[in-house]
């Protein structure tokens, strides 16, 4: 007998209650066999029995997913495990050259899929030769050559291994089983439920079941009402396409199928009309108008983007919980959307789980393994830190203790700007070494080394690393997968370690772990296929855009549509038909909410074809989908009156204000007092970033250091060669890598040349040099003492007791105006220090003749001297400038000695500092009105 269950009912619940009525003896239903399409379906039906028994204990039928049916027979070889198959195909693909391991692995999966299809549709390989016109045979040959992997090489390999493809084995098993039924009719009932057909072997098998005396078939949602014309015109994208084909194969008329608990609802009328085959839609405008009640319990949310769509869904799921016992489900193909919804549900402390599960690569263990592999590959401090901060990393200590250590190590490195090399107990270095070696390595070697380190690193104070890693659903699944991988890995080509992390990720991606138990008893997130057999009270069908639902078939690199057709394979569109069947099923839930976003990834979306069709047929009846927008969320996420903040102007008490500052700090105080406040008073220090690229700043430091060391050499050792050597040493010390050095070295050489000449000229003038001289000076400001201190890069003293203060600049030196106005006070402040003999005895009683910047950028001639003396003004007095500046400085100090004056942030935007560690803290961007760039 063949039954159909309308989607107005929950398929599994109605099936369960129907079967429960048949219980007879103490064996309950356990002698019945129920064959279902998937494991998921088995689980769903089992749970339906639970619901339908209302908690009473019952023995259920043997519920077997079709893929789990077992027949052990010597003439059915074992199937090749999917991972092994993929690895073997991958190897064959790699032999064709030019494809990296990760992609070869992915490609292997697409070839395996093609292979399965060819098997499932029983297509002889020879047919491939003749499906293209002669004129193109040359081009086609190229593809055929590649397809030889599966049509020539692959069968040979399988034969050697004495294994067969899983699809082949499944077909053989079903045939064998049917055969055994022919030999001896089974006494107990055999029921197939939830199938829609789609494959010839499956259709045959169902036909066999149909022919058994106690065989029954339960079809989901077969349309018994539509008129014959429509039924005849069905095409691939129609929801009933497969069922129609199945009935034809079984050889039964539509009218002979019996409907369990027949029911017709207005909404069913709507969807059936909307999904009519395209060729029959010209009659839409003439049909009897639909009644308004087709819209009962139906809502449509049109959202701006996935963000608001997720919130709207969350809101509606939450609403379900207000009615005790009511159930709800989000049905979507969009995993990101599901994630967003799950995250939003935390608002109400609701834990939801996406029943699509999580690929191992994103589980706790998976990320741990991948972070380890990636850190080894990049060798970057930040990647190592990501690993060390993973909860599974404990390195033999307790979790808290180890975390404390990591924080300590990190802060230390970032304060000292040193390389990050934490003293771990685990020897990660030898594993890291693999990766610095571009030699190909057998995968098992790499994998084993990886797991050794991983287990060591995961060892905690009281548990072995192995026990910590391979526990829980994710750890167990990972262990199983990697056990298999180690066993098969010798079937792979050796790989370059650089490809290992991404390959491992792809491999981990092949397995998904699903939560064993639903997180919430009443709410679920389901894929359309999972939703097939159940019917929650409220269903939210989300992501109703083309490409999302339905998902569109992807480009096939091997066969075009006409070619597939010629081969006798199914059209890619059949998948859409299956989706349509899913849609028409969930659309019949008691209460339905449709949602979609107008945009995704910044591009406008196209509404799902089914939505368009629904809208069209409604329009013909002068009805519209009850559209709601996401405006309700505005209360939640929008604000009517925002309060912008103002420039910070802290006025700390006098005793907290600094009474000694360095030369550079004076410049900061002029431009951005708030920085001084944050650094000197609040003592907030900027930590350096790890792995920062080296730049002009580091070059500057290297140049300064090299020149200082150079001038400290004995005069006869001050050769150009030595200077260059010193430079190299400094670059190395600063941590410049080869590439950095490659750029900076030529600059340094040009600079050195220029500098060396200058130096010689100065030596000829019998100058001597004071280098990096420290100085400090007490200044009396309105009766209060203030200390100015700092260092001068160099002071050149000539025999005539004149002195020149020099500052090395590797960037652009300040302009004369900035020097005079006090915004670049460095040289004049050094002048003040020198004039007041603050540099010590050797520098007393000198006449300052020049203040100059030496620009050591290494471009053009290599260097340039920028004196602050004006070129033309003959009346200019350097002393007067210095005196004037001292007055300016005193005024500045006095200003901050007044408690009413604040340490404002960037008081004059035109003169704000170029680099500022405290810009974020002062939230400058939020209030500053800027100068034109």
């Amino acid at each position, binding site marked *: 007998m063949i039954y159909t269950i309308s989607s107005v009912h929950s398929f599994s619940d109605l099936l369960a209650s129907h079967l429960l009525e048949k219980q007879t003896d103490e064996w309950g239903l356990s002698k019945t066999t129920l064959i279902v399409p998937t494991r998921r379906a088995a689980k769903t039906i089992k*749970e339906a*029995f*639970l619901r339908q028994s209302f*908690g009473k*204990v*019952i023995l259920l039928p043997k519920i077997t997913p079709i893929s789990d049916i077992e*027949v*052990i027979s010597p003439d059915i070889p074992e199937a090749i495990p999917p991972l092994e198959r993929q690895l073997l195909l991958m190897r064959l693909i790699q032999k064709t050259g030019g494809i990296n391991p990760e*992609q070869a692995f992915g*490609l292997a999966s697409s070839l395996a899929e093609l292979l399965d299809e060819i098997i499932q549709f029983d297509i002889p390989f020879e047919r491939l030769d003749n499906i293209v016109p002669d004129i193109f045979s040359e*081009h086609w040959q190229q593809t055929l050559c590649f397809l030889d992997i599966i049509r020539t090489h692959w069968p040979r390999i399988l034969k050697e291994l004495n294994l067969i493809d899983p699809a082949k084995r499944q077909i053989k098993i079903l045939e064998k089983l049917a055969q055994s039924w022919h030999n001896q009719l089974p006494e107990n009932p055999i029921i197939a439920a939830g199938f829609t057909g789609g494959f010839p072997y499956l259709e045959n098998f169902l036909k066999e079941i149909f022919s058994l005396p106690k065989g029954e078939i339960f079809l989901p949602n077969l349309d018994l009402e539509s008129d014959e014309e429509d039924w005849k015109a069905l095409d691939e994208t129609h929801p009933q396409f497969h069922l129609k084909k199945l009935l034809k194969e079984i050889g039964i008329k539509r009218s002979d199928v019996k409907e369990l608990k027949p029911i017709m609802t207005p909404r069913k009328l709507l969807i059936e009309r909307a999904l009519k085959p395209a060729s029959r839609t*010209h009659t839409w*405008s003439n049909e009897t108008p639909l009644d308004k009640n087709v819209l009962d319990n139906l809502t449509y949310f049109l959202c701006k983007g996935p963000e608001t769509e997720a919130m709207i869904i969350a809101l509606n799921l939450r609403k379900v919980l207000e009615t005790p016992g009511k159930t709800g489900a989000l049905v979507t193909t969009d995993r990101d959307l599901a*994630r967003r919804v799950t995250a939003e549900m935390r*608002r109400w*402390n609701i834990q939801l789980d996406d029943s699509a599960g999580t690929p191992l690569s994103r589980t706790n263990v998976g990320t741990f393994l*991948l972070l380890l592999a*990636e850190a080894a590959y990049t060798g970057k401090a*930040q990647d190592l830190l990501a690993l060390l*901060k993973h*909860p599974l990393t404990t390195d033999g200590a307790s979790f808290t203790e180890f975390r404390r250590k990591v924080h300590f190590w990190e802060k230390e490195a970032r304060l000292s700007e040193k390389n990050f090399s934490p003293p771990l107990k685990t020897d990660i270095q030898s594993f890291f070494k693999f990766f610095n070696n571009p030699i190909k390595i057998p995968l098992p070697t790499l994998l084993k080394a990886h797991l050794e380190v991983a287990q060591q690193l995961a060892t905690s104070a009281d548990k072995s690393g*192995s026990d910590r890693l391979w*526990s829980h659903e994710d750890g167990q699944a990972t262990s199983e997968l990697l*056990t*298999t991988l*180690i066993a098969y890995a010798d079937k792979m080509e050796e790989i370059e370690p650089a490809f290992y992390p991404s390959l491992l990720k792809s491999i981990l991606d092949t397995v998904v772990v699903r939560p064993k138990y639903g997180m919430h*008893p*009443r709410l679920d997130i389901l894929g359309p296929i999972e939703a097939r057999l159940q019917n929650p009270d409220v269903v939210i069908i989300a992501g109703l855009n083309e490409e999302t639902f339905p998902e*569109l078939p992807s480009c096939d690199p091997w066969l*075009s*549509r006409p070619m597939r057709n010629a081969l006798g394979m199914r*059209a890619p569109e059949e998948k859409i038909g299956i989706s349509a069947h899913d849609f028409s099923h969930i659309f019949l839930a008691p209460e339905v909410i449709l949602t979609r976003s*107008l*945009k995704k990834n910044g*591009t406008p979306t*196209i509404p799902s074809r089914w939505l*368009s069709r629904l809208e069209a047929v409604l329009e013909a009846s002068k009805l519209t989908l009850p*559209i*709601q927008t996401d405006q309700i969320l505005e*209360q939640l996420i929008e604000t009517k009156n*925002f*309060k*912008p903040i103002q420039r910070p102007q*802290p006025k700390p008490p006098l005793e907290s204000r600094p009474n000694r500052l360095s030369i550079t700090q004076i410049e900061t105080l002029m*431009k951005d007092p708030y920085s001084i406040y*944050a650094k000197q*008073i609040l003592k907030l220090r*900027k*930590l350096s970033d790890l792995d920062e690229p080296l730049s002009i700043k580091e070059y500057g430091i290297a140049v300064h250091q090299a020149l200082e060391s150079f001038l400290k050499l004995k005069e006869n050792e001050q050769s150009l060669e030595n200077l260059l050597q010193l430079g190299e040493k400094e670059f190395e010390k600063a941590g410049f890598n080869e*590439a950095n050095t*490659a750029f900076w070295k030529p600059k340094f050489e040009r600079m050195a040349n220029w500098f060396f000449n200058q130096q010689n000229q100065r030596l000829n003038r019998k100058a001597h040099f004071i280098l990096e001289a420290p100085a400090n000076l007490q200044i009396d400001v309105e009766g209060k003492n203030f200390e100015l201190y700092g260092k001068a890069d160099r002071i050149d003293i000539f025999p005539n007791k004149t002195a020149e203060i020099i500052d090395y600049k590797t960037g652009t030196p300040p302009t004369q105006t900035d020097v005079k106005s006090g915004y670049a006070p460095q040289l004049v402040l050094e002048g003040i220090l020198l004039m007041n003999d603050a540099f010590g005895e050797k520098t007393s009683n000198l006449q300052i003749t020049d203040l100059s910047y030496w620009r050591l950028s*290494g*471009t053009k001639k290599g260097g340039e001297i920028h004196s602050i003396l004006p070129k033309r003004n003959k009346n200019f007095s350097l002393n007067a400038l210095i005196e004037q500046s001292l007055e300016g400085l005193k*005024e*500045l100090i006095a200003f901050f000695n007044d408690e009413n004056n604040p340490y404002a942030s960037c008081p*004059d935007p035109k003169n704000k500092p170029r680099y500022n560690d405290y810009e*974020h*803290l002062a939230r400058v961007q939020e209030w500053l*009105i*800027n100068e034109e760039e």
Partner: protein
Amino acid sequence: MTSLSLKEEATKAQQIACQPEISAWVSASAGSGKTKVLTDRVLNLLLSGAEAEKILCITFTKTAAAEMANRLNKILREWAMLPTSELTQQLQKLTGQGDISHLLDKARSLFAYILEVKGGMKIMTIHSFCQSVLKRFPLETGISPSFEVLDDNKDAKILLSTAIRIIVTDAQYAESLRIVSDYKTEQSFTELMQSLGKERNKLKRVLDSAMGLKGIEEKLYQLFSFSPLDTEESLIQKIYTGDDWEGYQSQFLTQKKEILSKVKKSSDPHQLQTAQEILETLDKIKALKTVQATMAFLKLSLAVLEKYEDLKRQKGLLDFDDLILYARHLLEESNMAAWVLYKLDGGIDHILVDEAQDTSPDAWSVIQYLCEEFFSGQGRSEKNRTLFVVGDRKQSIYRFQGADPDAFEKMHALFKERVLTSKHEWKDVPLNISFRSTQPILDLVNYLLKHQHAKAGVVLDHEDTTHLASREDEGGLVEVWPVEEYEKENKIEKVWPLPRIHSNEALPSVRLARKIAIRIKKMLAEKELLVSQNRPIRPGDIMILVQRRNQFLSDLVRALKENNVPVAGLDRLILTQDMAVMDLISLGEFLLLPEDDLTLAEVLKSPLFNLSEEELFNLAYHRGVQTLWSQLHRKQPTIYAQLKELLALTDTMPPFELYTYILSVLKGREAFLKQMGNEAGEALDEFLNLALQFEKTNTPSLQGFLKWLKSDEIEIKRDLEQDTIDAVRIMTVHGSKGLQANIVFLPDTCRKPNKAPSFVWMNQLPLWLPRKEIQSSLCIPWINAVKKQDEEEYNRLLYVAVTRAKDRLYIAGYETGRPSLSNNWHEMISSAIPGYDAKTKIILTSEQTKQIPEKKEIETFKEEKVLPNWFFKEAPEEPMPPKPLSPSKMKNEEPPQASPLTPQQEQAMRRGTYIHRLLQVLPDMSPKERTTFLKDLQLKEFEAPLNLLDLFNNQNLKKLFSSNSLSEVPIVGTVNGLVISGQIDRLVILPDEVLIVDFKTNTNPPKQLSDVPPLYIEQMNAYKCLLKNLFQSKKIRSFLLWTTTMELMELK
């Protein structure tokens, strides 16, 4: 001319362009109904029986593609439902045919037909099209069939940097690098390489041509008439042999290298001659340096590019340009276009190209190869195939992406010739009637098109492109405001000014921003009428267009916000520079290192915690060596508790969930919007999007995410064209391409780009000019030629800007610190309008004379407007057992798996599963069957069969496999409030007892009962309880069968 006939004329032109059997080239001025023509053409094609899957419609952006698809969808949906009379009317108008009755059914079913087209309608960008071709022809193209597209700029940059690193450390490029490093740092060189974009292919092609690097060098020497032996010294020595060349020069020239006046006046003509010789030599030296720099750069950059290609190939990646390049290469091969067309599901019959003026030469090539097939190849005879191009030279503004308005003309001629020689029909259709703009705006356009400077590059000399207004009877307005100028500054230069607060409000840009904001506020507050629609102006009517994104934009946004005008935000957003995003990054950094004081301070001051300056002082001041974090516990316990919770969550949540938690559950979003305004929300959304995007290619970790975020500026492009939000839109003119607005402000009109190109092509030779000092006078004409092209593009940009406006256009300008260049937009606009100058306000208007039909109020569905109470409450607790029933979780965990490193682990695992399987099958066989069966199976690997037989032969165990037993029996039920759903591996029902057995495949089975994992015992006890319910009078016994040892253990 009356408007009726104008419209008739326009309709007629459009109808011609839409005829499905002809190929056509449509030059469509702005607002002339280009989109409609395109849509109508597709409709006509479909009606005439063209197969939908064989129509290829190429749009400029993905957005345009989606809109086009949605528009078609909407029209066809209407057709499906229209009464016959109305549909007939529409079809007549569309096709220009009288009797269309035979088309009615077809028209009606087109809607569903289009929806179900196999593979979808091909309305896409050229990039998407090329990508889909490459996906189909990987082997033919020689790329990995699973190639991925690097559409993320960031990843492309990382690859490029890697390439640079490899090349610069290669000794053979040291000499080139020495030269290049004079002009570029590592960073700026990397930037230069990134920006090379459109030159990349051109460079490669020059290299591939016979010349090679050596050839280029020779040609360059020829061009400047050097000998390859020339050096700077040798050039000097030709005129001067002493050793003070600088000193020698200063006798004749000033510092600025001009001839000294005393030399000019000198009576000795020899003096002047020498001076000129020196100048010539200096110029030659420049040229020499240019050649040297160019060669060094070419050598280096080409090596880098080659390496970059290598790396991409290795990783199976293609960048955006590659898509088109590879498609072009693919189609170039002989006979390939035909094969491609054949295999693309049977081909393409009609190609439509939109925005053709901005199509790059490589993209044109792709189209050309496809068309080649149309008009000569295989398909020529059987079928009608057409090409349809819509474009407007005047709107070509993407030169920086490789577009070229001259190519547009060239392609026009080329296709026309191809089509006509193949005896197909061809039409040139100009569309100059604007349906968009009112008369004053078109007046301005027409003035500009006649303006001596403004028209350069926009229209050809002989062309008459006078724009006619179809809306001539509607009210419109153009206002040109005088330029906002610098106030005369009292420039007293203060020495050491005290750090008191200055404001910059006197800046012209800031003043203009305010003015505009106030004007808009007035429009809205006073409900000014949009006369053509007879309704008050809404914020969504207004669009502000600028040339570039700069500080002025931020000022504008701020000014609008201060005046409470809703702003839609900017069309681009540099995410990592957004304050809210910076706060979130800091929060993340804090969570990764709580001892980072400054970062914690930033977090505390952010809107999330909103600590005041005083509170921060109290927390931080005088804390000695303590961290800020250690102070928080005592002084801010609430914040401490929140952060502590987040610290714990960081270990369990991936970045996306963590940040969603912060923004939603902890109400972070609310806090940000309150302080920063609503449009901050977009940055937050984008931030979360990035968190999702990050995980697509990276292993989730907060550390990794932040590193990735900060590795590069992330610019988010946003479409503002949809009228979903009623707010003022601000965007660049480039961004406004294809858009329109009722009211347009154009405030950024004084800027004129005047950047000297750093790369020019002289006679097909590349020349790198990294610095002005090395520009020889010889290069000047070429540099000027590029500058001229820039100016022409600048003019076209103005045309695009002005024509965005439908009803009103406001033009303003502001002075910047730099002197403004002549013929900037503002100057051209005010001088183009007869009788006006730049100093007075200019107004052009037109009257509304057209009657406006009353608008019907559309009934809207009643929406819930207020968030319900339960929204703010946690979910109610669920009853135990839950209702409806669902299985409960066991208390105990599964024991850990053995390590994959355990020897022979895989075999053990497989053995376990296999035995499990055998145990399902074997019991149902007779002993004899069993023995032969096991013998037949070759299971040496596992040594299992013997063992198994022992099991069945064991007298004690016999009853386990008797006929009263069943395998794999699912059981459900409730006991003690627990909901059980399980499966019993072996169930035996005997008269007085029931036995249940579970098979366990653990590799190390426990020796005694006390070592059995607690979960197993829990499970078996649960089954026992269930069965007790079912078989109340029988004894229930439970066993575990350890398959590794084949030992049976009873649980008691």
